[in-house]
């Protein structure tokens, strides 16, 4: 039995993020912030799998800067999701950006970088258009970016242009039925000026997921902890109450376990 066709069981992460059975989410922009000791890549894999499950009524645009498609395909296969099949079905649009020169193809001046980002934005728009035509404007779109720090490198270190691009992606979330999931590394920014992009992302996001190690050090059964700040726990406009969740995780070969501290036996 293909696990990808079985009903997805909810876990603490899905509950904290409010992921529905069709894969839809109540938030527009989510930021995953990890560190060297606790990589947040597993969160992208998990959310990618949930977005492409059989019950999911949407499609995914994946901007891959960190790993090639084959890497994600291999990881998701172990989790019971066939990315190649999903790509052929046009439920997944993978934009390979491993070559970080894609933004400076037309030159390294600021205008060229801005044009490069505009072209990337245009590619995302065209996929959304193709998806809407195919599904008669139905279904949501999830844009996943892995990861922002590499996008900044591609932009020759220009956090301003990077944030301009993210701002335009954010407008898609309010104009269309889109959500945006971003991975960023919290421990690579040293100066206050560099921290600015982190803070901008924090303000922009409705949900912030922080992956950290345990304060007590390395453990065999617990690989780290997640702190999830859901700024719009209830409703979209108006009444929005922040909720904070904190639980731990253990990475297995083909799945992730989430549990509250002290409940792992």
């Amino acid at each position, binding site marked *: 039995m293909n696990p990808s066709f079985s009903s997805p069981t909810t876990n603490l992460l899905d509950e904290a993020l409010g992921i529905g059975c069709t894969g839809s989410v109540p938030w527009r922009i989510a930021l995953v912030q990890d560190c060297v000791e606790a990589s947040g890549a597993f969160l992208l894999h998990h959310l990618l799998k949930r977005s492409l499950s059989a019950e999911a009524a949407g499609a995914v645009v994946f901007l891959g800067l960190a790993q090639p498609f084959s890497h994600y395909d291999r990881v998701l296969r172990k989790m019971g999701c066939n990315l190649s099949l999903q790509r052929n079905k046009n439920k997944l649009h993978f934009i390979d950006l491993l070559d970080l020169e894609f933004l400076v193809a037309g030159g390294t001046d600021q205008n060229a970088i*801005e044009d490069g980002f*505009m072209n990337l*934005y*245009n590619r995302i*728009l065209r996929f*959304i*258009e193709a998806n*809407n*035509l195919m599904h008669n*404007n139905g279904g949501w779109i999830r844009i996943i970016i892995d990861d922002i720090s590499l996008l900044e490198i591609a932009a020759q270190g220009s956090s*301003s242009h990077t*944030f*301009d691009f993210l*701002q*335009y992606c954010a*407008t898609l979330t*309010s*104009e*269309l039925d889109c959500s945006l999931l971003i991975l960023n590394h919290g421990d690579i920014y040293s100066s206050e000026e560099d921290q*600015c992009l982190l*803070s*901008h992302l*924090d*303000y922009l996001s409705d949900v912030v997921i922080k992956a*950290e190690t345990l*304060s007590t050090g390395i453990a065999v059964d617990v690989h780290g*902890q997640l*702190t999830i*700040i859901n*700024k719009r726990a209830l409703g979209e*406009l*108006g*009444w929005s*109450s*922040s*909720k*904070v*969740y*904190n639980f731990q995780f253990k990475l297995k070969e083909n799945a992730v376990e989430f549990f509250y*501290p002290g409940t792992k036996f």
Partner: protein
Amino acid sequence: MAESISRSLRDGCMEGEHAPALTIEDSLASSLGSSVFDHFLANLVSQIAAGKSQARGLVLVAFNRSPAFYLELLRRKGVDAQHVDKRVRILDCYSDPLGWKKRVPPLKTAQNLPVKANVACFSDARDTNKLMASILDLGKEFVGQDKSRFAVAIDLVSSLLRYTSLPIVAGLVNKLRSNDQTSCIVWLIHSDLHEQRVSAALAYVSTMVASIQPIAQCTDEQTSQQNSVWLGKNSDKAKLHVRLKRRNGRVKLLAEELHLDQVGVKFTAVGDQNSNAAKSLLPKVQFNLQLSEQERVERAKVVLPYEHQGNGEEIQIYDGRRSLSDSISISQPSVASPVISDTQVAPGIGEIHYVRDSDDEQPDSDEDPDDDLDI
């Protein structure tokens, strides 16, 4: 205090004076700035719609949230849609601030939503001269022959500062304030996105600065679980510190607490919530957990053992086995004997009456439990 800010915005400016300007600043530690901005914005629009304010209309420069969000916000706050159409103009700097959408083919599948008449798209956020001209053009719709004024609200100055420098932004704000047709200005800034000097520069051009601070302070030593608790506490409550600059130069500092609920932001005086919370913490039991005034006075008078009284007299070592009156009257230390309640206490001196459980037992005469003490 929030009321006084709303009144100040409603009353606008006097002839020959610059328009009052309110800076709302927050940070990630307490990010309720947007909600506070929404509160004052909705309040101002209500006053404008009711004809109670000096301003005849409002121009909202939207960088941070879509025009649809603000139209929905005003509808939920009870402002009539007709009044919104008539009295509010939104300069949309959110949807396409850099003009990208003009340069890429539009979505063919985009639902053709009706373009709101009171929303104007602005696609050149880097050009503040054009921005200024657009604001004044929209404001002119409210200014008739009677030299009426309009209010201006900028939902996020931090976004504007990304596109242009501080001197240019400060210049824009100053020009708006000194414009004859401006009644008042409100803007929001996230202080931790900029250097200190940015907040200071904008504070100088403001007549009111409302700074949102967290209710609970965070320490570096907090564990992640404590951090979660801290984040939870600060998510819907904060302190509002307001600095009001009077015309005569006097600066007034005020503080209130605010909390966010289903209706919106509510402001309360500092301390009200704390005292009520403290009262509610005491458990309801049949015995008294608090001291009466008499008991407090008596407790304050008790001479503690081994304590220097600071009055220049020889240190009296108080043997807890005897009453204080006995130790004062006896000049030489004597063998300890069981403490008996003594009613003949020197006036003005407090005493703790202590009856030991082992009082009925006669101690061994050869044994002095205090023998091992080396005082």
